[in-house]
Protein backbone atom coordinates (compact mmCIF):
# COMPACT_ATOMS: atom_id res chain seq x y z
CA UNK A 1 0.00 0.00 0.00
CA UNK A 2 2.84 2.33 0.97
CA UNK A 3 4.70 1.37 -2.17
CA UNK A 4 1.60 2.08 -4.26
CA UNK A 5 1.20 5.53 -2.66
CA UNK A 6 4.82 6.39 -3.35
CA UNK A 7 4.44 5.26 -6.94
CA UNK A 8 1.24 7.31 -7.30
CA UNK A 9 2.90 10.45 -5.90
CA UNK A 10 5.89 10.06 -8.16
CA UNK A 11 3.63 9.48 -11.16
CA UNK A 12 1.60 12.57 -10.36
CA UNK A 13 4.75 14.68 -10.07
CA UNK A 14 6.04 13.37 -13.38
CA UNK A 15 2.63 14.06 -14.96
CA UNK A 16 2.65 17.62 -13.58
CA UNK A 17 6.10 18.10 -15.09
CA UNK A 18 5.28 16.44 -18.38
CA UNK A 19 2.00 18.28 -18.94
CA UNK A 20 3.47 21.79 -19.19
CA UNK A 21 6.39 20.42 -21.15
CA UNK A 22 3.99 19.04 -23.77
CA UNK A 23 2.10 22.33 -23.84
CA UNK A 24 5.35 24.21 -24.19
CA UNK A 25 6.71 22.08 -27.00
CA UNK A 26 3.36 22.15 -28.79
CA UNK A 27 3.15 25.92 -28.45
CA UNK A 28 6.66 26.52 -29.67
CA UNK A 29 6.69 24.17 -32.58
CA UNK A 30 6.59 25.53 -36.08
CA UNK A 31 3.10 25.30 -37.64
CA UNK A 32 4.38 22.96 -40.35
CA UNK A 33 5.74 20.48 -37.78
CA UNK A 34 2.65 20.20 -35.57
CA UNK A 35 1.50 16.58 -35.38
CA UNK A 36 -1.78 15.06 -34.28
CA UNK A 37 -0.82 14.91 -30.57
CA UNK A 38 0.35 18.51 -30.57
CA UNK A 39 -2.86 19.60 -32.24
CA UNK A 40 -4.92 17.79 -29.61
CA UNK A 41 -2.84 19.34 -26.82
CA UNK A 42 -3.24 22.82 -28.30
CA UNK A 43 -6.99 22.38 -28.81
CA UNK A 44 -7.43 21.17 -25.25
CA UNK A 45 -5.22 23.81 -23.68
CA UNK A 46 -6.30 26.85 -25.68
CA UNK A 47 -9.66 27.48 -23.91
CA UNK A 48 -8.07 26.98 -20.48
CA UNK A 49 -5.22 29.32 -21.36
CA UNK A 50 -7.66 31.88 -22.73
CA UNK A 51 -9.80 31.71 -19.60
CA UNK A 52 -6.83 31.97 -17.22
CA UNK A 53 -5.36 34.89 -19.14
CA UNK A 54 -8.72 36.66 -19.23
CA UNK A 55 -9.20 36.27 -15.48
CA UNK A 56 -5.68 37.47 -14.74
CA UNK A 57 -6.05 40.49 -16.98
CA UNK A 58 -9.52 41.31 -15.64
CA UNK A 59 -8.31 41.34 -12.04
CA UNK A 60 -5.25 43.39 -12.98
CA UNK A 61 -7.39 45.83 -14.94
CA UNK A 62 -9.80 46.35 -12.02
CA UNK A 63 -6.95 47.17 -9.67
CA UNK A 64 -5.20 49.37 -12.21
CA UNK A 65 -8.43 51.22 -12.92
CA UNK A 66 -8.88 51.85 -9.22
CA UNK A 67 -5.36 53.20 -8.97
CA UNK A 68 -5.93 55.29 -12.07
CA UNK A 69 -9.21 56.58 -10.61
CA UNK A 70 -7.32 57.95 -7.62
CA UNK A 71 -5.02 59.71 -10.05
CA UNK A 72 -7.98 60.85 -12.13
CA UNK A 73 -9.57 62.56 -9.12
CA UNK A 74 -6.33 64.39 -8.38
CA UNK A 75 -5.97 65.25 -12.06
CA UNK A 76 -9.59 66.42 -12.17
CA UNK A 77 -9.03 68.81 -9.27
CA UNK A 78 -5.83 70.11 -10.81
CA UNK A 79 -7.54 70.63 -14.17
CA UNK A 80 -10.50 72.39 -12.53
CA UNK A 81 -8.16 74.80 -10.76
CA UNK A 82 -6.30 75.36 -14.01
CA UNK A 83 -9.60 75.90 -15.83
CA UNK A 84 -10.61 78.55 -13.29
CA UNK A 85 -7.25 80.24 -13.67
CA UNK A 86 -7.48 80.17 -17.47
CA UNK A 87 -11.03 81.56 -17.38
CA UNK A 88 -9.82 84.41 -15.22
CA UNK A 89 -6.92 85.00 -17.59
CA UNK A 90 -9.27 84.89 -20.56
CA UNK A 91 -11.51 87.49 -18.91
CA UNK A 92 -8.52 89.70 -18.18
CA UNK A 93 -7.29 89.29 -21.75
CA UNK A 94 -10.72 90.23 -23.09
CA UNK A 95 -10.71 93.36 -20.95
CA UNK A 96 -7.16 94.13 -22.10
CA UNK A 97 -8.22 93.62 -25.71
CA UNK A 98 -11.13 96.03 -25.29
CA UNK A 99 -8.84 98.56 -23.60
CA UNK A 100 -6.33 98.09 -26.37
CA UNK A 101 -8.97 98.63 -29.02
CA UNK A 102 -10.22 101.80 -27.35
CA UNK A 103 -6.72 103.18 -26.90
CA UNK A 104 -5.85 102.32 -30.50
CA UNK A 105 -8.87 104.25 -31.69
CA UNK A 106 -7.94 107.12 -29.40
CA UNK A 107 -4.40 107.13 -30.78
CA UNK A 108 -5.70 107.11 -34.33
CA UNK A 109 -7.40 110.42 -33.53
CA UNK A 110 -4.09 112.18 -32.87
CA UNK A 111 -2.85 112.63 -36.45
CA UNK A 112 -6.34 113.59 -37.57
CA UNK A 113 -6.69 116.28 -34.93
CA UNK A 114 -3.18 117.66 -35.25
CA UNK A 115 -1.40 119.71 -32.63
CA UNK A 116 -0.33 118.55 -29.24
CA UNK A 117 -2.44 115.94 -27.45
CA UNK A 118 -2.40 114.20 -24.08
CA UNK A 119 -4.02 110.86 -23.41
CA UNK A 120 -5.76 110.83 -20.04
CA UNK A 121 -7.68 108.38 -17.91
CA UNK A 122 -11.05 109.26 -16.42
CA UNK A 123 -10.46 108.71 -12.71
CA UNK A 124 -13.72 110.05 -11.28
CA UNK A 125 -17.20 110.97 -12.37
CA UNK A 126 -19.49 113.32 -10.53
CA UNK A 127 -23.08 112.26 -11.00
CA UNK A 128 -26.43 113.92 -10.45
CA UNK A 129 -29.24 112.54 -8.33
CA UNK A 130 -30.42 110.73 -11.46
CA UNK A 131 -27.04 109.10 -12.05
CA UNK A 132 -26.25 111.42 -14.91
CA UNK A 133 -22.58 112.28 -15.19
CA UNK A 134 -22.21 116.02 -14.76
CA UNK A 135 -18.44 116.29 -14.53
CA UNK A 136 -15.46 114.03 -15.05
CA UNK A 137 -11.99 114.17 -13.57
CA UNK A 138 -8.80 113.26 -15.44
CA UNK A 139 -5.46 111.99 -14.21
CA UNK A 140 -3.59 114.84 -15.89
CA UNK A 141 -3.33 118.41 -14.71
CA UNK A 142 -1.17 121.48 -14.42
CA UNK A 143 2.03 119.47 -14.10
CA UNK A 144 1.30 117.95 -17.51
CA UNK A 145 0.77 121.41 -18.97
CA UNK A 146 -2.97 120.98 -19.17
CA UNK A 147 -4.68 124.35 -19.18
CA UNK A 148 -8.23 125.55 -18.74
CA UNK A 149 -10.31 125.64 -21.90
CA UNK A 150 -8.45 122.84 -23.69
CA UNK A 151 -10.84 120.61 -25.70
CA UNK A 152 -11.37 117.04 -24.58
CA UNK A 153 -12.37 114.37 -27.08
CA UNK A 154 -12.97 110.64 -27.10
CA UNK A 155 -13.22 108.18 -29.97
CA UNK A 156 -16.95 108.88 -30.11
CA UNK A 157 -16.68 112.65 -30.38
CA UNK A 158 -16.36 115.84 -28.37
CA UNK A 159 -16.51 115.39 -24.60
CA UNK A 160 -16.12 119.00 -23.46
CA UNK A 161 -13.33 121.26 -22.28
CA UNK A 162 -11.01 121.54 -19.30
CA UNK A 163 -12.73 123.62 -16.66
CA UNK A 164 -10.03 123.75 -14.01
CA UNK A 165 -6.69 122.10 -13.34
CA UNK A 166 -4.59 121.55 -10.26
CA UNK A 167 -1.59 119.37 -9.62
CA UNK A 168 -2.02 116.16 -11.53
CA UNK A 169 -5.75 116.42 -12.00
CA UNK A 170 -8.19 118.27 -14.18
CA UNK A 171 -11.97 118.63 -14.23
CA UNK A 172 -13.81 118.56 -17.53
CA UNK A 173 -16.89 120.58 -18.32
CA UNK A 174 -19.08 118.36 -20.50
CA UNK A 175 -20.83 119.50 -23.65
CA UNK A 176 -24.17 118.81 -21.91
CA UNK A 177 -23.32 121.29 -19.12
CA UNK A 178 -25.60 124.30 -19.34
CA UNK A 179 -22.56 126.62 -19.01
CA UNK A 180 -20.98 125.11 -22.12
CA UNK A 181 -21.24 126.96 -25.44
CA UNK A 182 -19.65 125.65 -28.64
CA UNK A 183 -19.85 126.96 -32.19
CA UNK A 184 -21.19 124.11 -34.33
CA UNK A 185 -22.13 123.38 -37.87
CA UNK A 186 -24.58 120.84 -39.25
CA UNK A 187 -23.06 118.43 -41.73
CA UNK A 188 -26.07 118.59 -44.05
CA UNK A 189 -26.81 122.11 -45.22
CA UNK A 190 -23.87 123.65 -43.31
CA UNK A 191 -26.22 125.56 -40.97
CA UNK A 192 -24.39 127.12 -38.02
CA UNK A 193 -25.40 127.79 -34.45
CA UNK A 194 -24.30 127.77 -30.83
CA UNK A 195 -24.56 124.47 -28.97
CA UNK A 196 -25.40 124.72 -25.27
CA UNK A 197 -25.98 122.00 -22.72
CA UNK A 198 -29.49 121.73 -21.36
CA UNK A 199 -28.32 120.58 -17.92
CA UNK A 200 -31.41 118.41 -17.78
CA UNK A 201 -31.59 114.92 -16.29
CA UNK A 202 -30.85 113.42 -19.65
CA UNK A 203 -27.83 113.91 -21.85
CA UNK A 204 -28.95 116.62 -24.26
CA UNK A 205 -27.82 119.90 -25.85
CA UNK A 206 -29.60 122.61 -27.71
CA UNK A 207 -28.48 124.47 -30.83
CA UNK A 208 -29.43 128.10 -30.63
CA UNK A 209 -29.33 130.79 -33.28
CA UNK A 210 -30.07 128.48 -36.16
CA UNK A 211 -31.51 130.64 -38.89
CA UNK A 212 -35.16 130.02 -39.52
CA UNK A 213 -34.50 129.35 -43.19
CA UNK A 214 -31.88 126.65 -42.49
CA UNK A 215 -32.99 123.16 -43.31
CA UNK A 216 -32.59 121.00 -40.22
CA UNK A 217 -33.90 117.47 -39.74
CA UNK A 218 -33.72 114.91 -36.94
CA UNK A 219 -30.67 112.66 -37.44
CA UNK A 220 -28.48 115.41 -38.86
CA UNK A 221 -24.94 115.17 -37.53
CA UNK A 222 -23.54 118.14 -35.63
CA UNK A 223 -19.81 119.00 -35.80
CA UNK A 224 -17.59 121.68 -34.30
CA UNK A 225 -17.21 124.50 -36.77
CA UNK A 226 -13.63 125.36 -35.84
CA UNK A 227 -14.61 128.97 -35.27
CA UNK A 228 -13.19 130.31 -32.06
CA UNK A 229 -9.82 129.28 -30.77
CA UNK A 230 -10.98 126.54 -28.51
CA UNK A 231 -12.18 123.61 -30.63
CA UNK A 232 -10.76 122.25 -33.86
CA UNK A 233 -13.25 121.83 -36.69
CA UNK A 234 -15.05 118.64 -37.74
CA UNK A 235 -15.27 116.93 -34.38
CA UNK A 236 -18.55 115.10 -34.03
CA UNK A 237 -20.64 116.55 -31.22
CA UNK A 238 -23.97 114.75 -31.62
CA UNK A 239 -27.08 114.18 -33.71
CA UNK A 240 -30.22 116.28 -34.02
CA UNK A 241 -33.02 114.71 -32.08
CA UNK A 242 -35.78 117.21 -32.78
CA UNK A 243 -36.31 120.69 -34.23
CA UNK A 244 -38.27 123.45 -32.47
CA UNK A 245 -39.68 126.13 -34.77
CA UNK A 246 -41.48 129.06 -33.21
CA UNK A 247 -44.10 131.04 -35.06
CA UNK A 248 -42.27 134.30 -34.56
CA UNK A 249 -38.62 135.32 -34.55
CA UNK A 250 -35.53 134.93 -36.72
CA UNK A 251 -34.18 131.71 -35.31
CA UNK A 252 -35.10 128.10 -34.73
CA UNK A 253 -33.69 125.62 -32.21
CA UNK A 254 -32.67 121.98 -32.43
CA UNK A 255 -32.36 119.47 -29.63
CA UNK A 256 -29.17 117.36 -29.93
CA UNK A 257 -28.24 114.01 -28.46
CA UNK A 258 -24.49 113.96 -27.71
CA UNK A 259 -22.35 111.46 -29.57
CA UNK A 260 -20.42 110.55 -26.44
CA UNK A 261 -21.73 108.14 -23.84
CA UNK A 262 -20.48 110.00 -20.77
CA UNK A 263 -21.35 107.17 -18.43
CA UNK A 264 -18.98 104.77 -20.18
CA UNK A 265 -16.03 107.10 -20.70
CA UNK A 266 -12.67 105.67 -19.67
CA UNK A 267 -9.97 107.33 -21.74
CA UNK A 268 -9.91 110.70 -23.48
CA UNK A 269 -7.56 112.91 -25.41
CA UNK A 270 -6.88 116.47 -24.28
CA UNK A 271 -6.06 118.69 -27.23
CA UNK A 272 -3.43 121.39 -27.00
CA UNK A 273 -3.24 124.47 -29.11
CA UNK A 274 -4.58 123.89 -32.59
CA UNK A 275 -1.92 123.34 -35.21
CA UNK A 276 -0.81 126.28 -37.29
CA UNK A 277 -1.88 124.43 -40.40
CA UNK A 278 -5.45 124.21 -39.21
CA UNK A 279 -5.54 127.84 -38.20
CA UNK A 280 -4.27 128.84 -41.62
CA UNK A 281 -6.83 126.64 -43.28
CA UNK A 282 -9.62 128.46 -41.47
CA UNK A 283 -8.12 131.93 -41.89
CA UNK A 284 -10.85 133.35 -39.68
CA UNK A 285 -10.95 136.47 -37.60
CA UNK A 286 -10.19 134.89 -34.22
CA UNK A 287 -11.58 137.79 -32.25
CA UNK A 288 -14.89 137.47 -34.03
CA UNK A 289 -14.88 133.73 -33.55
CA UNK A 290 -14.19 134.09 -29.87
CA UNK A 291 -17.20 136.32 -29.71
CA UNK A 292 -19.29 133.70 -31.48
CA UNK A 293 -18.04 130.95 -29.18
CA UNK A 294 -19.06 133.00 -26.24
CA UNK A 295 -22.60 132.89 -27.46
CA UNK A 296 -23.18 136.30 -28.93
CA UNK A 297 -24.42 136.13 -32.54
Amino acid at each position, binding site marked *: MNYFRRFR*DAALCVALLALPFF*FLSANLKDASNVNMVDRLVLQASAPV*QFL*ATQIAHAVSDVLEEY*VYLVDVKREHERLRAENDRLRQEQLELRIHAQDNERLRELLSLRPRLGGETWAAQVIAKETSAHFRVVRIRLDRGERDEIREGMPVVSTEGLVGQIRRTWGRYADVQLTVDQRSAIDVVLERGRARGILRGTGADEYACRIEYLERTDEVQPGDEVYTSGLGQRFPSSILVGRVRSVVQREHGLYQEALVTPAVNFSALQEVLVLGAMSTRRRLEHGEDWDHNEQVADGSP
Partner: protein
Amino acid sequence: MTSILRTFVVVSLGFILLVLQSTIATLVNVHWVTPQVVLPIVIWQSISSDVHLVRGAFASFALGYLADSFCGNLMSLHTFVMVATFTVVRGAGLRLFFRGPAYQVVLTFAVGVLALGTMLALRAIFEKLPPFSTEGQWSPFWGLLADVSVTAFLAPLCFSAVRRADTLVNRRKEESAPG
Protein backbone atom coordinates in the same frame (compact mmCIF):
# COMPACT_ATOMS: atom_id res chain seq x y z
CA MET B 1 -10.02 19.13 3.10
CA THR B 2 -7.51 21.25 5.05
CA SER B 3 -4.71 20.48 2.60
CA ILE B 4 -6.93 21.70 -0.23
CA LEU B 5 -7.65 24.90 1.72
CA ARG B 6 -3.92 25.40 2.41
CA THR B 7 -3.13 24.91 -1.25
CA PHE B 8 -5.87 27.36 -2.17
CA VAL B 9 -4.52 29.94 0.30
CA VAL B 10 -0.96 29.57 -1.03
CA VAL B 11 -2.12 29.91 -4.64
CA SER B 12 -4.31 32.88 -3.71
CA LEU B 13 -1.33 34.57 -2.09
CA GLY B 14 0.66 34.04 -5.28
CA PHE B 15 -2.25 35.50 -7.25
CA ILE B 16 -2.34 38.59 -5.01
CA LEU B 17 1.43 39.07 -5.35
CA LEU B 18 1.17 38.81 -9.13
CA VAL B 19 -1.67 41.36 -9.20
CA LEU B 20 0.39 43.72 -7.05
CA GLN B 21 3.42 43.23 -9.26
CA SER B 22 1.50 43.93 -12.45
CA THR B 23 -0.14 47.00 -10.90
CA ILE B 24 3.15 48.41 -9.68
CA ALA B 25 4.64 47.75 -13.11
CA THR B 26 1.98 49.97 -14.70
CA LEU B 27 2.62 52.79 -12.23
CA VAL B 28 6.39 52.69 -12.00
CA ASN B 29 8.65 52.03 -14.95
CA VAL B 30 10.52 48.98 -13.64
CA HIS B 31 10.38 46.87 -16.77
CA TRP B 32 14.12 46.41 -16.81
CA VAL B 33 13.79 44.06 -13.83
CA THR B 34 11.04 41.48 -13.28
CA PRO B 35 11.13 39.67 -9.95
CA GLN B 36 9.64 36.16 -9.87
CA VAL B 37 7.29 36.71 -6.93
CA VAL B 38 5.91 33.16 -7.01
CA LEU B 39 9.35 31.53 -6.90
CA PRO B 40 9.89 32.07 -3.12
CA ILE B 41 6.44 30.52 -2.49
CA VAL B 42 7.42 27.46 -4.53
CA ILE B 43 10.73 27.23 -2.63
CA TRP B 44 8.92 27.59 0.70
CA GLN B 45 6.64 24.69 -0.19
CA SER B 46 9.51 22.50 -1.29
CA ILE B 47 11.47 23.02 1.96
CA SER B 48 8.46 22.84 4.29
CA SER B 49 8.26 19.35 5.77
CA ASP B 50 4.49 19.46 6.31
CA VAL B 51 3.73 20.17 2.64
CA HIS B 52 3.01 16.92 0.84
CA LEU B 53 4.87 16.24 -2.39
CA VAL B 54 1.73 16.03 -4.53
CA ARG B 55 0.11 19.02 -2.89
CA GLY B 56 3.27 21.09 -3.38
CA ALA B 57 3.57 19.98 -7.00
CA PHE B 58 -0.05 20.94 -7.68
CA ALA B 59 0.38 24.32 -6.00
CA SER B 60 3.59 24.94 -7.98
CA PHE B 61 1.76 23.99 -11.17
CA ALA B 62 -1.03 26.44 -10.38
CA LEU B 63 1.38 29.21 -9.38
CA GLY B 64 3.41 28.69 -12.56
CA TYR B 65 0.25 28.74 -14.63
CA LEU B 66 -0.82 32.00 -12.99
CA ALA B 67 2.60 33.51 -13.67
CA ASP B 68 2.26 32.47 -17.32
CA SER B 69 -1.18 34.06 -17.50
CA PHE B 70 0.02 37.34 -16.02
CA CYS B 71 3.38 37.84 -17.70
CA GLY B 72 2.27 37.22 -21.28
CA ASN B 73 5.23 34.93 -21.77
CA LEU B 74 5.20 31.58 -23.55
CA MET B 75 2.39 29.51 -22.05
CA SER B 76 3.57 26.69 -19.74
CA LEU B 77 7.16 27.97 -19.51
CA HIS B 78 6.68 29.14 -15.91
CA THR B 79 4.43 26.15 -15.17
CA PHE B 80 7.12 23.68 -16.19
CA VAL B 81 9.94 25.55 -14.45
CA MET B 82 8.01 25.99 -11.19
CA VAL B 83 7.07 22.31 -10.97
CA ALA B 84 10.66 21.37 -11.87
CA THR B 85 12.03 23.77 -9.23
CA PHE B 86 9.72 22.30 -6.60
CA THR B 87 10.76 18.75 -7.48
CA VAL B 88 14.47 19.51 -7.59
CA VAL B 89 14.55 21.48 -4.32
CA ARG B 90 12.44 18.84 -2.59
CA GLY B 91 14.71 16.12 -3.98
CA ALA B 92 17.84 17.96 -2.85
CA GLY B 93 16.51 18.09 0.71
CA LEU B 94 17.45 21.70 1.30
CA ARG B 95 15.25 22.18 4.35
CA LEU B 96 18.27 22.35 6.67
CA PHE B 97 19.20 25.70 5.16
CA PHE B 98 15.86 27.25 5.98
CA ARG B 99 16.96 29.21 9.05
CA GLY B 100 16.85 32.99 8.69
CA PRO B 101 16.40 35.79 6.16
CA ALA B 102 20.03 35.62 5.03
CA TYR B 103 19.70 31.91 4.23
CA GLN B 104 16.40 32.58 2.51
CA VAL B 105 18.01 35.21 0.29
CA VAL B 106 20.96 32.98 -0.57
CA LEU B 107 18.75 29.96 -1.18
CA THR B 108 16.32 31.93 -3.36
CA PHE B 109 19.21 33.43 -5.30
CA ALA B 110 20.74 30.03 -6.01
CA VAL B 111 17.43 28.41 -6.94
CA GLY B 112 16.45 31.51 -8.92
CA VAL B 113 19.60 31.32 -11.03
CA LEU B 114 18.77 27.71 -11.81
CA ALA B 115 15.10 28.38 -12.53
CA LEU B 116 15.55 31.48 -14.67
CA GLY B 117 18.56 29.94 -16.35
CA THR B 118 16.37 26.97 -17.25
CA MET B 119 13.76 29.34 -18.67
CA LEU B 120 16.34 31.04 -20.86
CA ALA B 121 17.72 27.71 -21.95
CA LEU B 122 14.25 26.37 -22.82
CA ARG B 123 13.48 29.44 -24.84
CA ALA B 124 16.80 29.25 -26.59
CA ILE B 125 16.22 25.59 -27.43
CA PHE B 126 12.57 25.79 -28.50
CA GLU B 127 12.14 29.22 -30.01
CA LYS B 128 13.04 29.67 -33.65
CA LEU B 129 14.37 33.21 -32.99
CA PRO B 130 16.49 33.57 -29.85
CA PRO B 131 14.76 35.57 -27.09
CA PHE B 132 17.79 37.78 -26.69
CA SER B 133 20.21 39.55 -28.96
CA THR B 134 23.22 37.42 -29.81
CA GLU B 135 25.36 40.54 -30.28
CA GLY B 136 25.28 41.62 -26.64
CA GLN B 137 26.19 38.26 -25.13
CA TRP B 138 26.21 39.55 -21.58
CA SER B 139 22.85 41.37 -21.63
CA PRO B 140 20.68 38.25 -20.90
CA PHE B 141 23.12 37.31 -18.15
CA TRP B 142 22.83 40.72 -16.47
CA GLY B 143 19.06 40.72 -16.94
CA LEU B 144 18.83 37.29 -15.32
CA LEU B 145 21.12 38.40 -12.49
CA ALA B 146 18.99 41.52 -11.86
CA ASP B 147 15.76 39.50 -11.82
CA VAL B 148 17.20 36.86 -9.52
CA SER B 149 18.73 39.45 -7.16
CA VAL B 150 15.47 41.35 -6.76
CA THR B 151 13.59 38.07 -6.30
CA ALA B 152 16.10 37.00 -3.63
CA PHE B 153 15.76 40.28 -1.73
CA LEU B 154 11.98 40.00 -1.85
CA ALA B 155 12.12 36.37 -0.72
CA PRO B 156 12.04 36.96 3.10
CA LEU B 157 8.85 38.99 2.68
CA CYS B 158 7.23 36.31 0.52
CA PHE B 159 8.38 33.56 2.91
CA SER B 160 6.94 35.47 5.85
CA ALA B 161 3.63 36.10 4.06
CA VAL B 162 3.15 32.49 2.99
CA ARG B 163 4.15 31.18 6.45
CA ARG B 164 1.64 33.50 8.15
CA ALA B 165 -1.12 32.49 5.73
CA ASP B 166 -0.35 28.80 6.27
CA THR B 167 -0.21 29.23 10.06
CA LEU B 168 -3.56 30.98 9.99
CA VAL B 169 -5.17 28.06 8.17
CA ASN B 170 -3.55 25.56 10.61
CA ARG B 171 -4.78 27.51 13.65
CA ARG B 172 -8.32 27.56 12.29
CA LYS B 173 -8.07 23.84 11.78
CA GLU B 174 -6.88 23.26 15.35
CA GLU B 175 -9.56 25.55 16.78
CA SER B 176 -12.30 23.77 14.86
CA ALA B 177 -10.97 20.30 15.86
CA PRO B 178 -13.22 18.62 18.51
CA GLY B 179 -11.77 18.29 22.07
